[in-house]
C-alpha cells in the first residue's frame, strides 16, 4: 500500500497516460517499427515529459529494460567524489614514449562521469539499441557541444531522448538531430476523468466545479494536483472549494516572503541567517534565489521608480555572482542594500 498518492497513481504503461492521445499514438507506432531517431521532448514544467519518455523506453526495451536504460539529470551538479573521479582519469600518461608531461584528455567532467560510461557499453539482449534519457537538457549549457559529438559517435549504439522545458536553450545542431515531440498540458476532459477515478478509489466526494478550480490551481501539473488532493483528503472525505484554497496556500513558498520582510525591517543579521538557511534547505543556487526574490519583490505595492531601483539591485547582484567566487558575499550584499532601501522608503 503506497501512502503517497502521486506515486500510487503514477501511470504504469503508455495506455494509462492521461490525455495527449496524439503523442501516445505516435510513440506506439515507433515501438511497432522498432526504430527511431534521437528524440527531443518539449513541454512546460510538470506535464509528464519524463514519465512518458520512461514508460516509452520501458515498452520499447521490454524485458531488457533495466540493462539498456538510463535516466540522467543535467541540472544536478556532480558531487565532489564524481568530480575527483573525472579529474583522476583525465590524464593519460604518455611518459612511456618519452614525454614527461603526459597528455591531458579534456572531456567535460559531466559527460565523462555520467554519459560516456553508459553510451560506450554494448547493447545487452535482443533490442536494437540502448536508450539514454537526459532530463532538463538545457541545463547542460556549454557541454552541449560535447554531447553533440557523443550523439554522432554512439548514435547507433544508443538513442537519446532529450527532455527540456525551453527549446531555445538548446543549440541548433542538436535540435536538428532530433525528432521533436511537443508534449502539451493535459486537457480538462482527461484531467477530470483521472481525478474522478482517483476520488472513487479513495472514496472522496468532489464536484465538477471543484475539479475545475483544481485544474487551474495546479497549472496543468498532474502531480501537483494529486498532491493537493491528498492534502485536502487528510481532513475529511468531502472536498470543498474553501478547503482547496486553504491547502493551496500552504504550497506557496512563503519563506522567501519572510526573508523579504526581514530585510524590509532592516534586520540584516537575521536576514542573512535566514537566506543561508533557505539555501541549505532548498539547495537553490544564487541565481535561483535572486529570481525568487525578484518575483516576490514585484508583488510589493511600490512606486515604479522604487521598482526599477530594486530591479537594479537584484540584477547587479546576479551579475556579480556570475563572476564572483563566494555567492554568499553577493547574497549578503543584496540583502544589505535592501535593508538600506527600506530605511529610505
Amino acid at each position, binding site marked *: 500500500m503506497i501512502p503517497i498518492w502521486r506515486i500510487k497513481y503514477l501511470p504504469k504503461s503508455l495506455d494509462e497516460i492521461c490525455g495527449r492521445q496524439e503523442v501516445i499514438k505516435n510513440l506506439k507506432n515507433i515501438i511497432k517499427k522498432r526504430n527511431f531517431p534521437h528524440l527531443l521532448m518539449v513541454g512546460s514544467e510538470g506535464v509528464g515529459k519524463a514519465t512518458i519518455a520512461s514508460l516509452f523506453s520501458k515498452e520499447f526495451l521490454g524485458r531488457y529494460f533495466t540493462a539498456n536504460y538510463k535516466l540522467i539529470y543535467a541540472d544536478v551538479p556532480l558531487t565532489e567524489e564524481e568530480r575527483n573521479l573525472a579529474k583522476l582519469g583525465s590524464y593519460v600518461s604518455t611518459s612511456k614514449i618519452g614525454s614527461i608531461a603526459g597528455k591531458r584528455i579534456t572531456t567535460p567532467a559531466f559527460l565523462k562521469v555520467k554519459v560516456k560510461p553508459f553510451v560506450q557499453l554494448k547493447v545487452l539482449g535482443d533490442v536494437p539499441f540502448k536508450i539514454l534519457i537526459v532530463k532538463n537538457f538545457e541545463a547542460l549549457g556549454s557541454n552541449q557541444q560535447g554531447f553533440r559529438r557523443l550523439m554522432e559517435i554512439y548514435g547507433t549504439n544508443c538513442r537519446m531522448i532529450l527532455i527540456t522545458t525551453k527549446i531555445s536553450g538548446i543549440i541548433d545542431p542538436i535540435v536538428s538531430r532530433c525528432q521533436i515531440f511537443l508534449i502539451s498540458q493535459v486537457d480538462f476532459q482527461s484531467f477530470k476523468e483521472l481525478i474522478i477515478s482517483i476520488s472513487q478509489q479513495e472514496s472522496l466526494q468532489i464536484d465538477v466545479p471543484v475539479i475545475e478550480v483544481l485544474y487551474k490551481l495546479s497549472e496543468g501539473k498532474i502531480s501537483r494536483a494529486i498532491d493537493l488532493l491528498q492534502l485536502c483528503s487528510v481532513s475529511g472525505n468531502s472536498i470543498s472549494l474553501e478547503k482547496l484554497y486553504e491547502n493551496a496556500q500552504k504550497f506557496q513558498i512563503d519563506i522567501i516572503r519572510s526573508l523579504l520582510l526581514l530585510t524590509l525591517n532592516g534586520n540584516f543579521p537575521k536576514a542573512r541567517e535566514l537566506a543561508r538557511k533557505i539555501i541549505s534547505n532548498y539547495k537553490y543556487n544564487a541565481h535561483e534565489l535572486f529570481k525568487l526574490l525578484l518575483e516576490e519583490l514585484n508583488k510589493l505595492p511600490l512606486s515604479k521608480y522604487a521598482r526599477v531601483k530594486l530591479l537594479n539591485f537584484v540584477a547587479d547582484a546576479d551579475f556579480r555572482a556570475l563572476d564572483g567566487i563566494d555567492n554568499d558575499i553577493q547574497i549578503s*550584499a543584496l540583502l544589505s542594500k535592501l535593508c538600506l532601501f527600506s530605511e529610505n522608503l
Partner: protein
Amino acid sequence: MGEIAKKPTKVAVEMPWVEKYRPKSMNEMALPSAKVEGHRVDLAEELTNFIRTFFKEIKSINEKNKKIRAYNRTAVEKEQKEEIKLPPEKTAVLLEGPPGIGKTSIVYALAHDLNMDVIETNASDTRTRDTLEKKLKETVKSRGIMDFITESKQKLILIDEVDGIYGTKDRGAVPTIVDLIGSTQFPIIMCSNEYKQSLQNLYKNIRRFEVHPLPDEEVFKIAQNILKREHISSLTPEDLQLIIKKNMGDLRGVINDLQAISQGSVSMDIKELILNLHRDSTEEIFALIRDLFQKVNTLEEARNLTDKSDVDYNFLYKWVNENLPTFLNVNEDLANAYENLSLADEIFGRIRKNQYWALLPYFYDLFAGGVALSRKRSPPTKGFRRVVFPRYITSGSYSLTSAERSMIDKLNAKYEISSIEAVQEFLPFLRILCNSSRKQLKTISDWLELDAKEKKLLK
C-alpha cells in the same frame, strides 16, 4: 620568527641544538609511548625484535634462494620456481605520529645500539622512481663482493616523511617503495605524520605504530637539562612551561625555540618573544579582523595589516564577510561596505578565471580598506568582539547532508526523481503532509523505512 631572523647574529654558526642534543642511544632518550592497533607496546623492544627477526629470517631465505638459484639452471626451470620473499609485515614498519616527537631520533638511536648504518631518504630529496632506485636499490639488492666488507656493519633503511611523497615531483615513488619492501635485504622503517589515502598501497600489510607525544613533564626535564648545559638562566620555569604548552608535545619545536631565544636580543621581553614565535594561525586571523575593524583609519594602514599577515587572502576576505555585521551595524555603512566587498569578490573571480593579475591591488584594497573605512555612521565598536569562523562557505556547488542523501536514495528506489527536484519540491510537500497529521508521518516513514535522522527531515 621574522623578527629574530632579521637581527644580525653575532654568534658564530653553530650546530642546531636539535642535532647537538639528538640522543645517541636508546638508553639516554625519553621513549615516546606507542600503540599498535590500539594496544600499547614498548617501542624500543618491538623495534629491536623486528630488526633481529628480520636478519634471522632473511638469512634463512637467502640460503633457500641460493639453492633455488643453483637448481634453476635453465630459463624454463627458472620460471617454474620463483625465489622466496619475506612477507611485507616482516620487512617494514611504519611509525606514525605528530612532528617533532622523536620518530627519526629513535631510528638513529636504534641503529647506534645495534651497530648499524642508516640509509636515509626524506622529503628534501626528490623521490622520483629513478633517484630512489639509484639511492636504495643498489644498496639493498646487490649482495656481491661488497657483502664481505659490509657484513660486519648491517644497514637500516629509513624512509622519512613518507607522507611528503606527492605530486609530479615524486612520480612513481610509491610503487618503487612497494617493490623495495618486497625485495629488500635490509629492514625498512618508515615515518609519517598522518594517514594518507593516496598511500594506501604502501600501508597495506605492514605494521603501523602509532607514536604518541611525550608528556609535558618529560619535555620539561629535557628542556631544563639543555638549558643547564647551555648555561642559560634568564628563562624562568613559567616561561619554559609556556613554551612547552605552545608546542603541544613537539619536543623538536621546544628545542628550536630555546635556541631561538638564546640567540635573540637580550633586551627584548622574553615573553613577547615567545608569543612572537608561536602565533597560532587562527589566533592571528582573529586579531587581524579585530584590528581591521577597530584600529584601521587609512587605506595604507589596512594595506599594511593585510600585507604583514601570512594569512591566505583566499580565506581572509571570507572572514571579512562573515564578521562584517558584528562590527558595522548601521545599514548605510553595511551597504557601502558590501558594495566594496562584492566588487572585490567579482574582481577576484575574474582574476582567477582570466589571470588578470593586474587587478589584484584593487581586490586587496577593496576587501580590507574599502570595507573597514565604510564606517561613517556606525559608532566605533570598542572592546572585545567575538570574531567567528566563516561558517558558511559556498563553493557554488550544492551538497546534500548525509540524511538527505540517504533519504533520497531510499525514495529513488520507489520513485524516480532528481535530487534537486526532491529537495525543492517533493520534500516540502511531504513536510506539509506530515505536519497535517501524525498518522501520515508514520505511514510514510514506515513505507520508506526511514530512520530517526531521516524522519527529522519530514518534521
